[in-house]
């Protein structure tokens, strides 16, 4: 294919941490002008590999070649000097400084007395931003920029050195579709200049849009490289998890009980308006829409975290007032929140204590918490949800994302809710655990729970829901049964295009 030496080549990299073989003989290469996607579940070794590349970890064995020459990189600075630049998933910019200052941070041009040479700085930074076709100047304060534009600043920073390899770590995690297009243009531009690109992402469609080749890691070892043009999602998924993932539409007939929750004309300021829907016991109702469509806000209102400005909430036919999470819980509403680590769990607490947290006041023998009662609850949900943890003393922060999510779900199931709301059930969870969580949600419906699932992933919403409610700008646009829904009509509904083709007000 190509005769020139690869921009970057890793051979048989081994990296162990106490008790874990994080990388087990991984080989990987990027050609100049190639976008090479790196895929793997959480814990497969992607981030360790990237840290080796960026000089943050030293490999125990193996060799790194840059442009055909073997190198060792002991610090991030040395890696940068070798032309390897990492664009982090979490941006590392100084928000209060200007774009130009961020771009040249650490090597600001100086004039006499060590003062910053502002004119040179702005000129040089301006030139780079222009090259990237950014719509903002070098003087703008980074804190005022959108996330996509902040990413541009990071990329601009990468271009101040003669980058031979740029590593993008989940770059689109917080970008809008329009911003993605801009990012992809830039990646293609870098590619045309002969830069080798390593692109890490969970999102299949992106990888198929942008990459030339795909390499897959599993459990710290290299599983193979595929040419993007000659493969498909199924093949890649199989390589990643060792089997294919079932994400077909839900065909299970709904087993509806009585109406568990009825929401009537609920409004909350400018967040959502005139929202009415019903959820039966034994039913999964999916809420689908763009970020900011008001789905999470509805969940938060039902859980007492926001106060509705008008409308009514009825549980089992009785109107209730929910003024706080405490009263939501008393009324039988539970929320598995969107952000597991920030809202769902106390990471420094053990598994058992996290599960029993909402009811710890009731699990007492005399004035003391009853160990036996707590362990009984933990054991029950560990078995029921197949939570993988050595024992209840394990800190929740040490569990994998999937198991953490099961702890949150277990916590709320142990409260025996009438209505269970699950916001983004599989965010940041690897593919294998995803299908377990989906199966779990279906099982809960079968057992008679009324479940609301909020998700930004269309296949997920279609896979688990009996009914889907499409939202757009704080309003319910349309309700679909699982027979009616198609990808097309769902996308139309959440973009504000109603069934007959009219644009919504």
């Amino acid at each position, binding site marked *: 294919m190509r005769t020139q030496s690869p921009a970057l080549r890793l051979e048989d990299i081994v990296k162990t941490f106490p008790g874990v073989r994080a990388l087990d003989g991984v080989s990987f290469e990027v050609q100049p002008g190639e976008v090479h996607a790196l895929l793997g579940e959480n814990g497969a070794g992607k981030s360790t590999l990237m840290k080796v590349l960026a000089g*943050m970890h030293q490999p125990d064995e193996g060799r790194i070649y840059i442009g055909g020459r073997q190198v060792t990189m*002991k*610090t*991030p600075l040395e890696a940068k000097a070798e032309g390897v630049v990492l664009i982090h998933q979490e941006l590392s910019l100084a928000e209060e400084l200007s774009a130009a200052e961020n771009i040249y941070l650490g090597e600001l041009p100086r004039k006499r007395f060590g003062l910053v040479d502002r004119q040179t700085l702005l000129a040089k930074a301006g030139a780079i931003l222009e090259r990237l076709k950014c719509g903002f100047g070098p003087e703008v304060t980074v804190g005022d920029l959108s996330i996509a534009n902040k990413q541009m600043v990071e990329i601009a920073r990468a271009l101040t050195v003669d980058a031979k390899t740029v590593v993008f770590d989940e770059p689109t995690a917080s970008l809008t579709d329009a911003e993605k297009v801009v990012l992809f243009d830039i990646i293609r531009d870098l590619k045309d200049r002969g830069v080798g690109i390593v692109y890490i992402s969970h999102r299949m469609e992106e990888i198929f849009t942008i990459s030339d080749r795909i390499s897959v890691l599993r459990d710290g070892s290299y599983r193979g490289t595929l040419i993007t043009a000659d493969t498909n999602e199924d093949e890649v998924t199989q390589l990643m998890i060792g089997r294919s993932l079932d994400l077909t539409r839900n065909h299970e007939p709904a087993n509806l009980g009585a109406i568990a929750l009825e929401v009537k004309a609920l409004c909350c300021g400018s967040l959502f308006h005139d929202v009415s829907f019903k959820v039966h016991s034994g039913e999964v109702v999916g809420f689908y829409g763009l970020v900011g469509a008001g789905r999470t806000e509805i969940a938060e209102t039902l*859980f007492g*975290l926001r106060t509705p400005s008008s409308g009514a909430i009825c549980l089992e036919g009785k109107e209730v007032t929910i003024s706080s*999470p*405490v009263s*939501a*819980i008393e009324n039988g509403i539970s*929320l598995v*929140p969107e952000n597991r680590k*920030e*809202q*769902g*769990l*106390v*990471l*420094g*607490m053990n598994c058992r*204590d996290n599960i029993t*947290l*909402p009811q*710890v*006041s009731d*699990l*007492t023998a005399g*004035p*003391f*918490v009853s160990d036996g009662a707590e362990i009984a609850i933990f054991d029950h949900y560990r078995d029921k949800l197949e939570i993988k943890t050595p024992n209840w003393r394990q800190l929740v922060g040490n569990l994998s994302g999937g198991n953490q999510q099961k702890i949150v779900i277990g*916590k709320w199931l142990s409260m025996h809710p009438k209505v269970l709301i699950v916001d983004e059930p599989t965010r940041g969870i690897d593919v294998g655990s995803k299908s377990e969580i989906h199966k779990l949600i279906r099982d809960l419906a079968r057992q008679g729970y009324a479940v609301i699932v909020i998700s930004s992933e269309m296949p997920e919403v279609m896979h688990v829901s009996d009914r889907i409610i499409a939202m757009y700008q704080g309003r319910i646009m349309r309700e679909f049964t699982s027979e009616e829904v198609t990808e097309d009509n769902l996308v139309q509904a959440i973009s504000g295009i109603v069934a007959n083709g009219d644009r919504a007000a």
Partner: protein
Amino acid sequence: MAEERLNAIGKLLARQGILIAFVVFMIGFALLNDRFLAVDNVLGVVRSSAILGVMALGVTFVVISGNLDLSVGSMMSFSTIVVLDLHDKIGPELAIPAMFAMTMALGGFIGVLVGYFKLNSLIVTLGMLSAIHGLTLTYSGGKNMDIADKEGTWFSVIGQGSVLGVPVPIVVFLGLACLLAILLAKTPFGRKVYAVGGNGVAATFSGIRRPRVVLMTYLISSFCVAMAGLLQASRSMGSQNTVGQGLELEVLAAIILGGASLLGGSGTVFKTLIGVLILGFIQNGLLLVGLEFYVQYVVTWLIIILAVWLDIAAKRGRLLSPIA
């Protein structure tokens, strides 16, 4: 090598570093001065640590719930002055509960500001440090407070008496430590304190009334301060307005030495107890080997820095890290 990851021994050292350093200190002091480990010296150290210790027990709750309390030193001066003044006016039987009520009202006020109004605890309690000092001076008119008839009252028993040969302050300190240890480790309230400090948002999402828990921690803290003020007043039977000055930092030092995180969510009453004793023995040891009293301020600070550094090093697995 600082750059390399710590091996198993290094990790043990880092994790238990303070205890090991403490043992080394103790052996060193014992060799330098044969009085150091004598029973009367040990009892003396525990007794003189009791007042600081009682305060540290209460602040432990505040710290675990993720807040700070810098007002305890000046609050202790307040309690001491108030109970001494009221002693002569309404008698010790009424003075003691009245002083507890007034001190805990101050704690409750802080608790409302931090818990319900969600103000930053550092700012609130730093302000209260100064405000309570002003309150004390206003109350006393700037004068020292003394009990007029020191012989004709049972009041001195609390600070100077003993039960079965054990000084009362030690009994109070250790008894309170046991009670609070049980409260923190065994009751639903204790669990909530850890949850609120570990992740306040998640605690709220789990139906825990976070403001109420925070208020309770400040009430416990101020209760302990009142107890410390009582011990101080009874021990000296008279006091300056500034008797508690600077104790807030020693309290925090003891808690950090014990191994609690100032970010909240970790720590135990037992660890604080150990921290208080380490601090007490080290300060005592420095005096016994003949160093000037003022040296202890510097040494205490050095020990705290060492403790914090070892704590962070144990968490990230190396002594120095390029990333924070």
